[in-house]
């Protein structure tokens, strides 16, 4: 993947790596002890209900508090084998931590569930893999995509005694954990180590550089395996649909983040002096903040609606403000302004407002000079094979699945961001992969009546 250099290249600070350490530093042993003491061990706990992957949170926190980190980690992994990455990337402020009853108490602050989960998963030591495999079933399942959904599905299937082969289009497994998460949220090689941990259960063969539709066909998988799980995510990006969108200086945010995550030397990353980010989700926040950390002087995030409509959580928006990212709401990108060489030099935006519930343009416009513009206006489903349009049912631009994660195709299941279920959170992908594995298991090993 090549990245067009921005018009102006800034020099990142010399000690650039220090700007990409953990945004939320891990707890020390002492902090974990004190924080775990705050958990009230609720009955029918609201945090469990709020966790998309059903982790028994009060139980693992009690285990942390009683010096049983291995037990705590096992509790987490038994519901969510990617508990380590979810501890880092989950928007806990709208999930478990929002539900924590401590919010309502006099102290008005939730137990730091995410950081406690990280403490347990970071420090638990296992001899070998924490889960053992059931007796071999002789059944073989193909998993397309080694992202959170595919890995979760593969692990659960392996636990059940099935033989799993994962087909991953990229060079490395991990999906968005490897290529798409802000570098300060998941540092060092954690994504790779987590994959290694998951595969440690055995019974899973990983094929990288094997793309569905290019290197292998769905028909082959259907005929060669007892079941297929599709977890290939969203490989397309939305366009602004403006003239000059391919001009030098106009980038997809996910491409830049991918380069940023893979860079072994951050000082070699091209950095614009001023940038505009278009979008309102966590990807927009992630790239805006990382640009600031790389040394970009002016970063403006523009969104055509108001703050309340942004899909980035309030916590994420605050992180952007803490990075001195300017957030311009009610501003719709209208014209990409180029210089004589055809390079981006600014963006004209149209002020918008709501009129009877409809977003409409006003007669006001303004211009933001910038060397680079990053599009973070959403990712889209790209079907690996044209035939899939007919074979699979599309709902809201994504794959339709039933409550058992079955697609309309026989023995073909799907989960994660490529489906229309959920809000495309990592933790949801993990849960969907896990539940799809349970459905596949039921299909392959029907309980004798």
């Amino acid at each position, binding site marked *: 993947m090549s990245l067009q250099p921005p018009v102006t290249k800034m020099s990142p600070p010399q000690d650039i790596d220090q700007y990409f350490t953990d945004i939320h530093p891990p707890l020390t042993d002492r902090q974990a002890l004190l924080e775990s003491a705050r958990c009230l*061990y609720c009955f029918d706990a609201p945090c469990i209900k709020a966790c998309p992957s059903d982790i028994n949170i009060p139980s693992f926190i009690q285990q942390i508090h009683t010096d049983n980190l291995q037990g705590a980690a096992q509790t987490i992994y038994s519901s969510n084998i990617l508990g380590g990455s979810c501890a880092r990337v989950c928007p806990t402020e709208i999930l478990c931590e929002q539900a924590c*009853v401590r919010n309502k*108490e006099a102290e008005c602050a939730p137990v730091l569930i995410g950081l406690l989960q990280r403490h347990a998963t970071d420090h638990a030591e296992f001899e070998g893999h924490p889960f053992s495999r059931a007796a071999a079933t002789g059944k073989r399942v193909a998993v397309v995509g080694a992202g959170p959904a595919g890995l979760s599905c593969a692990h659960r299937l392996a636990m059940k005694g099935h033989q799993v082969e994962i087909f991953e289009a990229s060079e490395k497994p991990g999906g968005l954990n490897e290529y798409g998460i802000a570098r300060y949220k998941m540092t060092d090689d954690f994504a790779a180590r987590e994959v290694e941990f998951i595969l440690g259960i055995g019974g899973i063969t990983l094929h990288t550089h094997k793309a569905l539709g290019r290197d292998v066909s769905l028909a082959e998988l259907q005929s060669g395996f007892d079941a297929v799980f599709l977890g290939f995510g969203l490989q397309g990006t939305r366009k602004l649909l403006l003239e000059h969108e391919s001009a030098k200086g106009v980038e997809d945010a996910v491409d830049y983040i991918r380069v940023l995550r893979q860079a072994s030397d951050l000082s070699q990353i091209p950095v614009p002096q001023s940038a505009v980010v278009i979008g309102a989700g966590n990807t927009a926040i992630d790239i805006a903040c990382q640009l600031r950390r790389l040394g970009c002087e002016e970063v403006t995030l523009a969104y055509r609606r108001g703050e309340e409509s942004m899909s980035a959580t309030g916590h994420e928006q605050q992180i952007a403000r803490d990075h001195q990212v300017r957030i311009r709401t009610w501003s719709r990108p209208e014209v990409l302004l180029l210089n004589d060489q055809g390079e981006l030099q600014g963006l004209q935006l149209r002020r918008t407002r709501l009129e009877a519930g409809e977003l409409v343009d006003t007669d006001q416009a303004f211009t933001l000079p910038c060397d680079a513009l990053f599009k973070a206006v959403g990712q889209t489903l790209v079907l690996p094979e044209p035939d899939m349009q007919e074979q699979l049912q599309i709902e809201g631009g994504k794959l339709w699945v039933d409550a058992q994660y079955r697609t309309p195709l026989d023995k073909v299941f799907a989960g994660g961001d490529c489906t229309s279920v959920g809000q495309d959170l990592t933790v949801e992908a993990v849960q969907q992969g896990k539940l799809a594995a349970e459905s596949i298991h039921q299909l392959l090993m029907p309980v004798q009546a």
Partner: protein
Amino acid sequence: MANLFTRFAGIESPNPFWLASAPPTDKAYNVERAFEAGWGGVVWKTLGEDPAAVNVSSRYSAIYDATGQVTGFNNIELITDRSLEINLREIEAVKKNWPDRALVVSLMVPCEEESWKTIVKLVEQTGADGLELNFGCPHGMPERGMGAAVGQVPEFVEMVTRWCKMYSRLPVIVKLTPNITDIRFSARAAHAGGADAVSLINTINSITGIDLDQMVARPIVDGKSTHGGYCGPAVKPIALNMVSEIARDPQTQGLPISGIGGISTWRDAAEFIALGAGSVQVCTAAMVHGFRIVTEMQDGLSRWMDSKGYQTLDDFRGLAVQNTTDWKYLNMNYKIVASIDQQSCIGCGRCYISCEDTSHQAISLTPKADGTNQFDIIESECVGCNLCQITCPVNDCISMVRKEADKPYMNWLNDPRNPYGEAR
């Protein structure tokens, strides 16, 4: 501000807060610092006959609450390991420097009349204000026939107390061990021997925990351990009960009591005084926080007394004794039930599961539309046990409400349900 002046068994001090006989009162340096910090008195760490005791290395262990604060403390230290002569010289000097403070000297010598006669005379010459007889030390010394080995035999308590009273004009305080079945027997023995006061409790035989790697109790002395003496906040309820037993006992009525056992705050002190204590002794709180903790203790006690209109300690001393009674005199017609303030309920469900699993199934759970639960008391099932209130993490969310308040007082002796009804 309320007056904290204390006169206990004829010994005067500017406030009721004394440091108990223990490591903090081992030598002049510590005691001087304690007096500078504001302590009303000290009981000097127990003196014995020469040669002085020898202590081991590694002496304390503790248990902690969920936040890491010390709740229970254990020690295997013996009495003073310094010579009698040095201690006596220091006691004399300190008392001269601090004439307004109480300086009581703790003593422990073999159970022989001559030994006691000798040491009480020596102490008297220092100008100290009183004697405290250490009949409580539960570790080490009993193996040599001293400490708890004396305190556990009422006849010995009475005998040694009598000797001390015979050979000294100083007030004699007898420090009682809690490692007995009924504290009143020891107190009665001290009273019979002529004691001016008793002090309690000394430490409780204890093992605070086991190192599960080395398979040895703490504290560890080269791979071995021994039981120690337990003190700190965890022992306060035991101490309060023993103080009340003595305060209520007609045979020891009026015998001054110096309260000891887990006193960490002004409130703890007020509780002991309410049960009749004339002074209070502190050790663990000082060992954990340093001597400065007496500042907050004095200030808190004075302000609380002001808020209640108590001008002197005598104004509230013993007021809780009359309300501490036998079970059989409790009102069988008194009924309370729990009431949940739905506004302050945070929905943790602790009250529900504790009542459902371990009590009377008197709380209902109703799922609400937003996924949380509502909890309501089923009054007909509630026995007023307080468990839900105890487990509730929110202040004043669960209150206990009086029911059937118009029924007359009726104790178990008069209760028709009593098969052995003394009244029938």
